[in-house]
């Protein structure tokens, strides 16, 4: 399900004296970690370096590397904005050892042929392993199901029409019924399109003042409620993409309490910003779903902390510069996030004490892996090395020319953040060595 470069260049190294935090293994201790041939081979103190490269981890945090369940790699069709090589290099710089790519490309990833060629490209170019989600409906038109069994056999990591909702309830029900044979997850973009038509930002006091057509919270939550009802009826699992509204969180929490196997994700920008930011009219603050109220934001932070929402997803959505150098109203939705996610969340959630560091690390790694049935990255003897070395003291400024992504439509341009990725090992290979 995950595809990346393979070959002989597996890592041999020892990280000495870092604070090793692995929420999966319930580990939080200062120790040395030895990696032999891309596999964690020893944890302890004064580990014999065995002639390997020694990395001084004193004062740093070593954790299981991150998994991003929601990335737009823009291939095929949008190579001017991102490629497998540039997107995975950005992921590596952000501390990720695995990412899942969305199928809303040109053409849409809705056939084994398109998926197969992407997998071949990933094997040749991907700096970190990539899983490709395939579409739920052909052309993401919301009319006919894709050949899910064949797509799963070809290696699809899951199914989604991300960017668009599956509108007809009967079709959604069929998708929930049929996808079960694949063992892969169904991931849903919840939006009732007649309630969000023409919308530019969250509907509320700020949209009323600025004059933007509003995207009400209820446009998301009615669809969340519908999909959770269908999932409960069909006893099918599902994953909810990029939740933004308190009502959605409450519906999810209630469904989980009733035994629905629902997982969900939230983006760094929805956790850090509110509709107030849109007053700047900066097109890099335009995304779908939109930034919502402070009440929504605090519900999302609470849900991330208590595990109702188990995953952080960047929804990394690169756009060409000229596409965003237009009036807010004309700009496309979406912002980048792979290279800034940890620092943004460390700065706005961990430092002020809203979310413990261990929780954030779990929601960025084990949480999203489990949501898609992937093996969670672990720091344990015998496990493949998927490691991120973090400096939680360092501050850095987000600058356009430092991105490895081909696009720079970041909502954090010019910001100074605390928390920096020093090194990423992905599937036993050195992916980023900063």
């Amino acid at each position, binding site marked *: 399900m995950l595809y990346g470069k393979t070959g002989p260049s597996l890592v041999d190294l020892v990280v000495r004296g870092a604070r090793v935090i692995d929420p999966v293994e319930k580990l939080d201790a200062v120790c040395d970690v030895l990696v032999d041939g891309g596999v964690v081979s020893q944890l302890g103190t004064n580990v014999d370096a065995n002639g390997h490269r020694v990395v001084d981890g004193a004062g740093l945090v070593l954790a299981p590397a991150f998994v991003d369940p929601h990335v737009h790699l823009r291939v095929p069709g949008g190579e001017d904005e991102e490629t497998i090589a540039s997107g995975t290099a950005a992921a590596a710089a952000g501390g990720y050892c695995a990412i899942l790519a969305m199928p809303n490309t040109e053409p849409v990833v809705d056939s084994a042929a398109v998926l197969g060629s992407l997998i071949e490209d990933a094997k040749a170019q991907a700096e970190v392993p990539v899983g490709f989600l395939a579409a739920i409906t052909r052309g993401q038109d919301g009319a006919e199901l894709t050949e899910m069994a064949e797509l799963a056999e070809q290696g699809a990591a899951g199914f989604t029409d991300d960017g668009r909702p599956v509108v007809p309830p009967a079709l959604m029900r069929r998708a929930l019924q049929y996808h079960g044979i694949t063992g892969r997850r169904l991931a849903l973009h919840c939006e009732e399109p007649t309630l969000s*038509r*023409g919308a*530019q930002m969250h*509907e*509320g*006091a*700020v*949209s*009323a*003042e*600025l*004059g*933007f*057509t*509003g995207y*009400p919270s209820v446009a998301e939550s009615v669809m969340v409620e519908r999909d959770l009802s269908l999932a409960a009826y069909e006893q099918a699992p599902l994953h909810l993409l990029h939740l933004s509204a308190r009502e959605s969180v409450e519906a999810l929490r209630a469904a989980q309490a009733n035994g629905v196997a629902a997982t969900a994700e939230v983006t760094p920008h929805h956790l*850090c*910003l*509110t509709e107030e*930011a849109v007053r*700047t*009219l*900066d*097109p890099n*603050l335009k995304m779908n779903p939109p930034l919502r109220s402070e009440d929504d*934001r605090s519900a999302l932070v609470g849900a991330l902390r208590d595990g109702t929402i188990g995953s952080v997803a960047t929804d990394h959505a690169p756009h060409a510069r*000229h596409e965003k*150098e*237009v*009036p*807010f*109203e*004309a700009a496309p939705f979406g912002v980048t996030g792979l290279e800034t996610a940890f620092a*943004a969340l460390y*700065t*706005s959630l961990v430092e002020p004490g809203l979310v413990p560091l261990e929780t954030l690390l779990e929601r960025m790694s084990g949480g999203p892996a489990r949501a898609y049935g992937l093996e969670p990255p672990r720091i344990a003897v015998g496990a493949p090395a998927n490691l991120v070395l973090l400096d939680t003291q360092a501050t850095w400024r987000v600058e356009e020319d430092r991105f490895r992504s081909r696009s720079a439509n970041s*909502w*954090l341009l*010019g*910001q100074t*953040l605390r928390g920096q990725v020093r090194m990423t090992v992905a599937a036993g290979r050195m992916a980023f060595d900063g």
Partner: protein
Amino acid sequence: MGEIHVMREQFLPPKPPPRRHLISIADLSREDVERLLATARSFSRSLEREVKKLPTLRGHTIVNVFYESSTRTSSSFELAAKRLSADTMSIKASGSSVDKGESLKDTALTLGAYDPDVIVIRHPQIGAPQLVARYTEAHVVNAGDGKHQHPTQALLDLYTIQEELGRIEGIHVAIVGDVLHSRVARSDVQALTLMGARVTLVGPPPLIPRGIKAMGCEVSHEIDAIAAADVVYVLRMQRERMQEGANYVPSLREYSARWGVTPERLRPGQKVMHPGPMNRGVEIDPRVADAADALIETQVRAGLVTRMAVLYDLLTTGPVGVRAPDPLEVA
């Protein structure tokens, strides 16, 4: 000599502070508005003279760029610039490179290459004036951007109320109609509340934006609410902005029956304003539009002196740097 000096001081407009752009009423303080209105008043006196042209802005270049159709705003900006002896150039989107697909950024860079002192822009998209301000050195005046702002309309409305009623503070204004699609309503609510007036928005629920009360106004869905106001401000039913099948109101017929401003719904002495162009018989009864208490042509005249005041205010201070946008707070 002293006395003459005092006389002349009174005729001179007040000194403005350094400022770059007029994009939103939200950027103005109460003092700014008072100064602009005082400047407009001094210009209105100058227009009573036989020779109406003032040499004030001689040598300055003012470019008007209109991406939307407009009669009164574009003509009044052009005349305002000419009355102040500035050189003007007017560009309409149709017939320009916009038809060839040129982006707003490139149009701004092109016009900016002529070093204009002011660019006046009307554009259907919110955020267009900010974009032009980012890519040129000119002072930018927003002549209407989508549903967002139309700050010179709000200033001329304040000027009209001040001149007709003698004050703005404490005046009760009812704004009636399609608030949802109206940049005039948003600018007026901001401007009127800034100056201490009371504002009530009146219209069918789907045309009153959710959350608008946070701007400091009241909301009523009953047309009877206009009876309590000193000024009834009638908004145009923006048929061209009504999305097909959106069902904001079932029909224009039902709208005008329930929310049309008719003589029967007004008290004697209530002033009536309208930003134009009017749909007679839809939002406003023709008898109301033509009555003595209607200030609609007064508003047009006020538009000229107010826009003269805005241009004067932007151009009579020394060069100042572009205000850097406030850095975003990561909450």
